C-alpha cells in the first residue's frame, strides 16, 4: 500500500496539520510501510463477523437529569490562550 505525496498532503489538511516538505516526505514513506504491514488483515475471512465497538457489551448509560455542581466560569477560562469579557477569543471567522 503506497501512499502518494498528494494523499499525504490531503490527509494533513483533513487533520489540520501544516507539514513541511521534509515531514511530508518522511510520513509518505513511514505511513506506507505501516499500511503495508496492515495488509495482513486481508487474509482473514470477515464476512460474517460483527464489528466490536465495546469490549463488554454496554447499553446506553443513563443518569437522572439533575442539576449538579460544575466548574465556575473563571476556572473554565483560566487556560484560555486569549480570553475577553468571559469569552474565548478567536481570529476572524467570516
Amino acid at each position, binding site marked *: 500500500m503506497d501512499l502518494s505525496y498528494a494523499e*499525504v498532503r490531503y490527509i494533513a489538511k483533513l487533520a489540520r*496539520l501544516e507539514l513541511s516538505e521534509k515531514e511530508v516526505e518522511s510520513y509518505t514513506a513511514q*505511513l506506507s510501510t*505501516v499500511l503495508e504491514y496492515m495488509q495482513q*488483515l486481508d487474509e482473514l475471512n470477515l464476512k460474517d*463477523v460483527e464489528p466490536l465497538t465495546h469490549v463488554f457489551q454496554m447499553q446506553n448509560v443513563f443518569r437522572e437529569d439533575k442539576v449538579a455542581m460544575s466548574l465556575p466560569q473563571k476556572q*473554565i477560562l483560566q487556560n484560555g490562550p486569549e480570553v475577553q469579557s468571559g469569552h474565548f477569543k478567536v481570529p476572524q471567522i467570516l
Partner: protein
Amino acid sequence: MNLEQLSLTEISKKISNHEVSSVEVTENLIRHIEKTEPALHSFITVTADLALDAARKFDEMNIKGESFLLGGVPIAIKDLLCTKNIKTTCASRMLENFVPPYTATAVEKIEQAGGIIIGKTNMDEFAMGSSTETSYFGKTRNPWDLDCVPGGSSGGSASSVAAHQAYAALGSDTGGSIRQPAAFCGIVGLKPTYGMVSRFGLIAFASSLDQVGPMTKTVEDAALLMNVLSGYDSKDSTSAQVPISDFVMPLKKNLKGMKIGVPKEFFIDGMDLEVKASIEKAITQLEQLGCTMIPVSLPHTKYSLSVYYIIAPAEASSNLGRYDGVRYGLRTPGDNLNQMYEKTRSSGFGAEVKRRIMLGTYTLSSGYYDAYYLKAMKVRRLIKSEFDQVFQKVDCLVTPTTPTPAFRFGEKTQNPLSMYLADIFTISINIAGVPAISIPCGFSKNKPIGLQLIGKPFEESTILQVAYQYEQSTLSNQLKPNLKKIEEFSKNEL
C-alpha cells in the same frame, strides 16, 4: 535499610504506627530525588513543597488515629492524569502550561486514602510511544542501564519506582504502557480490566483501550493500590458496575489446582534467548507451586498489532481534535481561524503524535473506513472471542511481557514499525479488555525481564495471587538497580 527503599505496604505501616512521620518520609524522598533525578529525569514536575504541606497535614490527622490505606506515603503520578492546580503536560509542548481546574478520579482516590503526590512523571508525548523518547521534555534513563530506555509510555513512572524516587506510581496502559516499562525497569505493573478504574481526568489517547493502573515495587503494593483505585465512577460512562472485593487478603492463598494456559503464539522466533529461558524457568516454578500448565492457542494474536495501529490512532485522531488553540493549550497565531488551527497543531504536537493523527485520519477517511477501521473492529471481535474461549479452560495465562529487555536510546526511533513491535505481547490484552500484570522474573545482560500474567475480565485477584506466590517463592524483586552509580552519574550531569 534506607527509608526510601521500603515498599509501599511497609512504609505506610511505619507511618501509621508512628515509627516515622509522613514529613520525615517525604523529606527523605525529596533528598533522594535530588540525588538521582539529574541522571534519570523520571519527573516533569516534582511537587516538593505541595508534598511537604500535604505530609504535614497528614501527620496532624495521624495523631487523631484515623486510619488510611496509603497513610502519608508519597506516590508519583503519570503526567496525563489531571491534578488540580498542578501543571499537567502530557509531555507535550501543546500542554506545556496547562493547569487543570479539576483532579482525575484515580488521583482523588489516592489523596482520599492519604497518599501524597510527589510529582508528575515523564512519558511519551500523549502516551504515544514505547520508550519515553517522544517526550517534549527530554528522555528518561533506565535505572538498570543508563544507556537504555525505561520503556514507555509510562517510562517516568517505572523509573521513579525502580530507583526508589516514589513508593509507587500511577501509569496508564493503552497497548502495554504500564506493563512494558514495568518489565524494562524490573518492577510490578498492572493493567486492570477495561472499566475497572475510572478514566475521568485521564487525558484521552484511545478511549476504548486506555486504562489507569498501579506501578509498584511489590505485588502486595499493587493489590493495595487496586483496593484504592477500583470502583464505579459516574463521571466515566464506560466505568464498570461490578462488585469490588479486597485484593490483598486473597494473595496468601496457595496455587494448588490453578490452571494456567501457555499460549504458543507468545513464544516466537527472534525472541531474546535469555528472556525465553527466564520465562521457561518461571513456568517450571509455577508448576512447583501446584499450578497445572496447559498449552493453548490464540491464533489471531499475530493480527493484534495491525488492529491496534488502526483502532488506537483512529481514536487518537478524534480525541486530539480538541487541541485547536481555542480553549486551552498552546495557540500559535494565524491570519484566520483555519491557519491558527494548523499552525497551533503543527507547532504543538511532536513527530510521533502527528504521525498517528495522520494514520488515524487516513484510516477513518471516506473511502478507507471499510478497508481499515471497520475491518479492525471485526478482527477485534475475533481476538476477544478467542480470549473468552481460552478462559473457559484455564484460570489465567502466562507469557513474556516483551520479546527483548530494554533497548538503547535511538535504536528504534528511525523506524516506527520496529518501535511498534516492542509491544507485540501486550497489545492484544487491551484489544480484548482483559487485565494483565507484569512482574520481574530474571535478567538478560543485567537488564530486567518481565513475566506477564493475563486474567479473566474483572478477576484481577487471580493474577495478583499467582504473581504474589511466584514473587514470594523466588524473591524475584529483591535485586535493585545500583543507586550509587545513578548518584555518581547525577553529579556529572550537574
